[in-house]
């Protein structure tokens, strides 16, 4: 590589995540060769045999770009978030969990005690007569065993450390990652710090090509399996709850193209803090009833508003956890 630019140092880390984000990085397929031509992967637990101590030994700001996926669920996640922040020039919250709290964030409807009760005592398939619970520290004769401490709250990455950019999605679209990666490699001017990159600024509805009319009037909400979707008309007009109106565009409305309503993984569009509140606002506008009892009847079909409207964004929403 004589005379050429030094290669970028790239790290990918997973905290409280399912692994789908790492797979979305792998989904670059043969373009991976372009990636490794431009960048050295210095840390990536899912694919490389690198250890935490390797990262600890790096000088500060050694890594050029870190894609951090997953929410902050325990002290190990928190430690790695802080460590990678220190070692990275650009830290990107990659994917819904890291950006918004994501599916693990739904644990904020509960707390540590309730979760442990369910998992180690009440669950139907659990046989735990000694009521054994995981402890952060446990003394055995060989010494003290330590495991990470489990937190009461799930947090997004930006609630723990300073984040440069967020790439939304569950998982993010691989093409958008490549666009971002190419922009960084080419040295193009990067957007202002804190921006959501690799996505649009408007809502899904702005992109979606399903037929929409001005006259949205709903008398009953249906679950997707309860209706025969015509594949053409807006889901909301058919009475199926679709998170499109309160969700950022940029994924290419893939779920909707696959005849499934949007679930909201790209989070709120620019200028919106609380996607669920916007969604409640939108839904209330299209219900075609004026009598309180009739409205309540229509709303009965929205069984779990908090879980539905905040499926990916509970930890970053206004009321970010259930009151206990």
């Amino acid at each position, binding site marked *: 590589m004589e005379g050429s630019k030094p290669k970028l140092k790239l790290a990918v880390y997973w905290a409280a995540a399912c692994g789908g984000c790492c797979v979305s990085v792998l989904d670059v397929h043969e373009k991976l060769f372009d990636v490794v031509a431009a960048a050295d992967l210095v840390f990536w637990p899912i694919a490389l045999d690198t250890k935490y101590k390797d990262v600890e030994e790096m000088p500060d700001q050694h890594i050029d770009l870190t894609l951090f996926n997953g929410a902050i669920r325990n002290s190990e996640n928190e430690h790695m978030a802080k460590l990678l922040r220190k070692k990275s020039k650009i830290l990107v919250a990659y994917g819904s969990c890291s950006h918004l709290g994501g599916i693990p964030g739904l644990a904020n*409807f509960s707390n540590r005690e309730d979760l442990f009760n369910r998992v180690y005592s009440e669950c139907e398939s659990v046989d735990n007569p000694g009521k054994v619970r995981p402890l952060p520290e446990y003394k055995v004769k060989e010494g003290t065993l330590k495991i990470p401490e489990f*937190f*009461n*709250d799930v*947090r997004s990455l930006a*609630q723990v450390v300073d984040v440069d950019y967020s790439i939304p999605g569950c998982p993010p679209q691989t093409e958008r990652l490549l666009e971002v990666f190419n922009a960084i490699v080419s040295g193009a001017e990067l957007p202002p710090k804190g921006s959501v990159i690799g996505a649009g600024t408007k809502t899904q509805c702005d992109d979606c090509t399903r037929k929409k009319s001005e006259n949205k009037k709903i008398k009953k909400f249906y679950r997707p399996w309860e209706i025969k979707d015509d594949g053409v008309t807006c889901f909301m007009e058919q009475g199926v709850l679709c998170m499109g109106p309160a969700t950022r565009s940029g994924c290419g409305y893939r779920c909707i193209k696959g005849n499934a309503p949007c679930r909201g993984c790209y989070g709120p569009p620019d200028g919106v*803090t*609380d996607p*669920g*509140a*916007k969604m*409640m*606002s939108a*839904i*209330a*506008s299209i*219900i075609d*009833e*004026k009598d*309180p009892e009739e*409205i*309540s009847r229509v*709303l009965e079909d*929205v069984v*779990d*508003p*908090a*879980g539905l*409207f905040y499926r990916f964004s509970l930890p970053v929403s*206004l*009321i*970010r*956890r*259930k*009151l*206990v």
Partner: protein
Amino acid sequence: MEFKPRIVAFLCNWCSYTGADLAGTSRMQYKANVRAIRVMCSGRIEPTFVLRSFIKGADGVLICGCHPGDCHYQEGNYRCLRRFLLLQKYIKQMGIGTERLKLEWISASEGKQFAELVNSFSETITKMGPCKIKDTMAVLT
């Protein structure tokens, strides 16, 4: 110390705010722990407003609009009603008592009713005690 609830009241310009004004000009006495916010229509009140009020420390939120059929913008109060009913379901799930959010229709001539409403709502919230939302949100571990 005696608990004095903080209540945020969103009042529509055309009916409820005028009603509250009437209560004032008629020199009616009512509890002073209500903070009135005038909006052009109850249909303008986004769920975000209500949630933000709770986050900022409101112990109760009162929404007042024109009586059904009387909306200056024809349909605004019905939108408000639907949002209110959906919000009630949501705040219940989040562990906030549904009694803390109240919707009432107050016309421009109902100064007396407004004063009574404020007194009774304030009493309900005083009995319930402070909303714990601020304490819960403060803990981040």
